[in-house]
């Protein structure tokens, strides 16, 4: 479903990605771990074509998205939902308008009726444990965690085939975190959604991942099934995971 081949990216003199190769089969969940500033978000934004690689390519469903531009790129994004690290809710729109946005802005052919849209928005907000009382609030009136959950609902509302989660659980309490993990698992099992998850939460990562990678110094320091990554001999990966496994 998603293939990243030898991806390189720098900003000025800051060489962020130095040859990343990974592939995510349809219906699987891929978790990317790594330190702060290691380039996880940059990697994810390449997958949806928000950044263009200096070298290498990204293919989604066989289409080389890293080479698209303009209208074809916009159309290719119909497949995706993305949760941004900072939620990125439209602050000139209410919660309802935010979550409904992917539905109301669809081409007229597959646009739903206002009642259907409302029902769908309420349903998706329920999934992230938000009631109808938030529908008419503005993003500035929500807590950080609530904003994150609205962003989750917005990413899932159009039933995308691929969902990109940039730290979906950061800033959430343990119960809600568990809830979001269940949501990701459910999306995979029931809807065969392909997911890419960036996480700082190693417990969550091992719970939801089919495959995972640890990003360090522009490379994937470890890559494979959770078990393979756990047994990696790479010193950084060892240190990164020991912080959590020591507690077990």
């Amino acid at each position, binding site marked *: 479903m998603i293939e990243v081949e030898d991806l390189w990216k720098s900003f000025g003199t800051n060489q962020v990605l130095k040859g990343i190769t990974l592939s995510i089969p349809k219906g699987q969940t891929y978790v990317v771990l790594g330190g702060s500033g290691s380039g996880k978000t940059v990697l994810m934004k390449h997958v949806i074509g928000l950044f263009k690689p200096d070298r290498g390519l990204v293919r989604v469903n066989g289409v080389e998205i890293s080479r698209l531009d303009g209208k074809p790129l916009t159309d290719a994004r119909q497949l995706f939902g993305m949760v941004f690290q900072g939620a*990125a809710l439209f602050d*000139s729109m209410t919660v309802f308008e935010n979550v409904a946005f*992917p539905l109301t802005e669809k081409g007229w052919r597959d646009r739903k009726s206002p009642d259907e849209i409302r029902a769908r928005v309420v349903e998706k907000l329920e999934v992230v444990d938000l009631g109808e009382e938030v529908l008419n609030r503005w993003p500035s009136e929500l807590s950080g965690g609530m904003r994150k959950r609205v962003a989750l609902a917005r990413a899932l509302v159009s039933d995308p085939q691929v969902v990109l989660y940039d730290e979906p659980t950061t800033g959430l309490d343990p119960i809600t975190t568990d809830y979001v993990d269940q949501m990701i698992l459910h999306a995979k099992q029931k809807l065969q959604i392909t997911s890419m998850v960036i996480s700082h939460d190693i417990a969550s990562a091992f719970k939801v991942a089919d495959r995972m990678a640890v990003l360090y110094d522009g490379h994937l320091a470890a890559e494979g099934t959770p078990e393979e990554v756990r047994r990696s001999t790479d010193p950084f990966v060892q240190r990164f995971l020991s912080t959590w496994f020591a507690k077990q």
Partner: protein
Amino acid sequence: MRRLQAALEDFGRMILFALEVVAWAVRPPFRLELVVAQMAFIGVGSAFIVGATGLSAGMVFALQMNYALKQFAAEGYVGGSVAFSLARELSPVFTALMVTGRAGSAIATELGTMRVTEQIDAMESMAVNPIQYLVVPRIIAAIVMFPLLTMLFNVIGYAGGFVMGVYVARIPIGPFLEHTREFMDPADILHGLYKAVVFGAIVSVITTWRGYAAAGGAKGVGEGTTRAVVMSSIAVLLADYVITFISVGT
């Protein structure tokens, strides 16, 4: 040298941006309700400040012309000269500068904030093109509203000149109106409206571009807004000179 190169590159990118705007403007879906909302913001929202500026400009200009023309015993021409100068110069230029300060700065700030808080990225991720959704309606609204606001400036400005000329400077009402008719040609008004259309396009492209290309957090957004206002104002004055020169020569 470096800075000149950077400025030229930025200018080149703005031109490409403007071409992209044109491409997205002619492609469905057409979001009429967004254009209407922007017209309300740019047009209705600026009506008061444009009207107030027009009133004061018309009044002051009438007094100055009266003072000057009195020396040739030609006060009767005050109405004509006020109308003529408003239509061809004062209205389009003052309107453009006032709307830049009020609506142009708001556009640059709003889009800039959306850029640095990833709202523009989020929109793209939802398969909605931000140029089509955010930029095109603002530019269309500006191109439509600048001439309408200029017309408002004309009307209120002339009314202000009329009050000053006829009731304060005591110019007989007959010659005041008669010489206005003699002096004015519909082409003079069209000349001003034509300028307004160009100014609307210039101001909206510059301010949306500065917002769209913003970077560097809140500070970057603030700097972008300042640059947007300064660049727009200079560009309006330059374009005014060029259009005037082309149409009347030396």
